């Protein structure tokens, strides 16, 4: 038990070093506050959970506690990544992505509580490990990402990714580090993020062992949220990496950037290599967790397969990352030899990108960060409330097709911030006036009232009688 606090602390150390710095530089208080508070709650939750790990019984309280954690986790994962996706400030985007990852951690934690409440100790331990492993991983790769973002800021003096671009040629090592961090954070195989997300997902898939239909189907929705989060995370980091490091530079600052000093790279290199090591040999990290929390789980050799068995001892799923690595390498060697034999030696020429014959391919033709986020912004429009201010200047007033210049200001609103400022004005007349608006004239709304009444009454009675 003495290890408990230490283990938690150890997992959080890089965060403790880097977070305050980042948050100090982030102008937006609400988002950082949100992340910070949630991290604290997470730690609190972990500790509390640990003290009760054996004491959890199947009382509905614990089930609801677990479900509550999962719901909060799913929502914050989704919300966090959605805001990270449209954010143009690289550090704030990373901060939002922290919210997402804490959400994923919460999902695992909540699952652990739920499983424990239903007396499924092995599953409970599994999801707990998943959650803790993700905490550990997150602290590693998020530290890495924040450090590289700091390097970018250091050498280009800007955090706005709209002004960056092409940095991979100027700062190759930093770019490499950021790439590793990105691949890790979006949970792609062979790096550590994949393992913990795989574990979380597996524990989500195991929900069918819970003896309650309502919970099972609700947890299916958690899978939905989780999957969407993973997908959005992929898009977010493609956008962040692509716009920051690839293609042409979008500003003078970015064009004149130089690689950061070596000693700044060393710290990152350590973190990056631990991402890789934990990805290939996840058991090192898992053993750390098991011993730190004194869990009833048999740790074994670092090359062991992670294997999850069903209730009837058949193989539910298994994962052996060293094996994956072997396959990957051998395929690579194979195809390399094959291509050499068939194709022989060929020449590679460098030439400009295809410009449709117009010539003068400028950096303005490439996709901007905002336009990269546009389709997703549109699809989740309900959530972002996107707003475009289009200000066009015409050559003549008569012909509105020949535009001299167009100025588009595209904004999204953080509906959560807005919702925080509640509407405080109320009075009985105001309320009455609102009530009166029920008669909105829309027959659709009327039928909706009927449906809502019906469902509300059914719920009211349904829960009244069965519990």
């Amino acid at each position, binding site marked *: 038990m003495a290890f408990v606090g230490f283990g938690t602390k150890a997992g959080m150390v890089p965060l403790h070093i880097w977070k305050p710095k980042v948050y100090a530089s982030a102008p937006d208080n609400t988002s950082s506050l949100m992340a910070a508070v949630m991290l604290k709650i997470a730690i609190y939750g972990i500790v509390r959970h640990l003290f009760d790990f054996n004491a959890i019984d199947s009382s509905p309280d614990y089930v609801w506690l677990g479900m509550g954690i999962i719901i909060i986790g799913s929502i914050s994962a989704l919300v966090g990544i959605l805001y990270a996706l449209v954010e143009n400030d690289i550090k704030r985007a990373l901060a939002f992505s922290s919210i997402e990852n804490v959400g994923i951690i919460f999902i695992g934690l909540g699952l652990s509580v739920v499983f424990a409440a239903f007396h499924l100790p092995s599953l409970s331990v599994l999801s707990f490990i998943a959650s803790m492993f993700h905490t550990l991983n997150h602290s590693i790769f998020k530290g890495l990402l924040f450090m590289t973002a700091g390097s970018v800021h250091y050498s280009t003096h800007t955090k706005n990714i709209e002004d960056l671009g092409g940095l*991979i*040629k100027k700062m190759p090592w930093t*770019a490499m580090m950021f790439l590793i961090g990105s691949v890790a954070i*979006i*949970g*792609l*195989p*062979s790096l550590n993020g994949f393992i913990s997300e*795989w574990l979380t997902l*597996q524990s*989500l*898939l195991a929900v069918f062992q819970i003896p309650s239909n309502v919970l099972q*189907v609700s947890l*299916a929705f958690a899978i*939905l949220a989780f*999957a*969407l989060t*993973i*997908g*959005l995370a*992929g*898009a977010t980091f*493609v*956008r962040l*990496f*692509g716009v920051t490091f*690839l*293609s*042409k530079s979008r500003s003078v600052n970015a064009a004149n950037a130089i690689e950061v000093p070596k000693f700044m790279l060393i710290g990152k290199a350590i973190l990056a290599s631990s991402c890789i090591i934990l990805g290939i040999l996840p058991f090192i990290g898992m053993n750390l967790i098991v011993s730190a929390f004194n869990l009833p789980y048999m740790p074994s050799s670092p090359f062991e*397969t992670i*294997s999850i068995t069903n209730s009837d001892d*058949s193989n*539910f*799923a*298994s*994962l*052996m990352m060293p*094996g*994956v690595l072997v396959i990957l390498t051998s*395929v690579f060697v194979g*195809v390399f030899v094959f*291509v050499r034999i*068939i*194709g022989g030696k*060929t*020449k*590679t*020429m*460098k*030439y*400009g990108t*295809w410009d449709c014959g117009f010539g003068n*391919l400028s950096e303005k*033709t*490439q*996709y901007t960060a905002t*336009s*990269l986020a546009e389709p*997703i912004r549109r*699809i989740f429009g309900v959530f972002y409330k996107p707003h475009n201010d289009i200000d066009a200047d015409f050559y003549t007033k008569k012909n509105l097709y020949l535009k001299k210049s167009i100025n588009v200001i595209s904004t999204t609103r953080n509906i959560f911030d807005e919702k925080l400022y509640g509407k405080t004005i109320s009075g009985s007349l105001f309320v009455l006036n609102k009530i009166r608006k029920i008669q909105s004239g829309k027959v659709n709304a009327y039928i909706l009232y009927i449906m809502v009444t019906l469902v509300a009454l059914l719920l009211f009675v349904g829960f009244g009688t069965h519990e």
Partner: protein
Amino acid sequence: MSDFSIFEYGLGILQALLIIVLSPLIVGIMRKIKAKSQKRIGAGICQPYYDIIKLLRKDEIVSDQSSWIFRVTPWINFVTTASAAFFIPVFLIYSPFGVVGDVLLVVGLFALGKFFMMLAGLDVASSFGGLGSIREMMMSVLVEPALFMTIFVIALFYDGTNISTIVSSANDTSILIVPGILFALIAFFIIMMAETGKLPFDNPSTHLELTMIHESVVLEYSGKNLALMEWSHAIKQMILFALFVDIFFPWNFVEQISLVGISIGILVFITKVSVLASFTAFIETLVAKWRLFRVSDLIAMAISSSMIGVIFFFL
């Protein structure tokens, strides 16, 4: 389950090689069928092989704006997709590499390839690459939930995400399809069309910027790199087809390992995949490309379909 002989591992490698080698053939078959149903003659079914070999022998041109990401992407893409092929049963009821990874790993490997492909699209500083990447990005964001839900349904019904487990328990269930799986089938089919860039989602046979998704990402590639990109795309399609027939039509797997059994198994497999491929090709000739933002409607259909599948499981 975990102890296989060297021989069986050899068979496993054979299965993977089959997928990798046969995949251009399936592409050829599909093109031929599409051509026929549009009253064209079309190229021979071996044309994709000739294409790949020809491309492999060509010199290539690389954009001067691009970085090593651009050059490394075809390799990563090919290696991840080809590695994924190792986990797919073809004529055996299992894959000996099933211990190494499950269906989630396959999804992850695809995602890794796709991640680099999107980066490569952004790397060349052309607006086409960006356009392709962004659309690919949107599509994968939307497909992800549908995919995971479908996996969830399949995992529920067939006890696990391990592909070998899934296939063997699919083989054990009755011929009458379980209602929940019926929904998973619909969802999986839609996802398959989306992932392989089939018609309502993407039109790979055009180079018009309004319509293309996948093609605009690989626009700048030539020579070896293009060959690898096209091939890995074919492999991905083959893997998805193979998974589809493995899970939903799991008949005639080889029970005893013998030369005759294996060859029959291979034949049956090729037939099943070809039938599926022809079916998809027919569907492709029947539908028009959808507006990009309507694509999400279809994917919503897949999601809800698999959600109902989940519900059916719990009843």
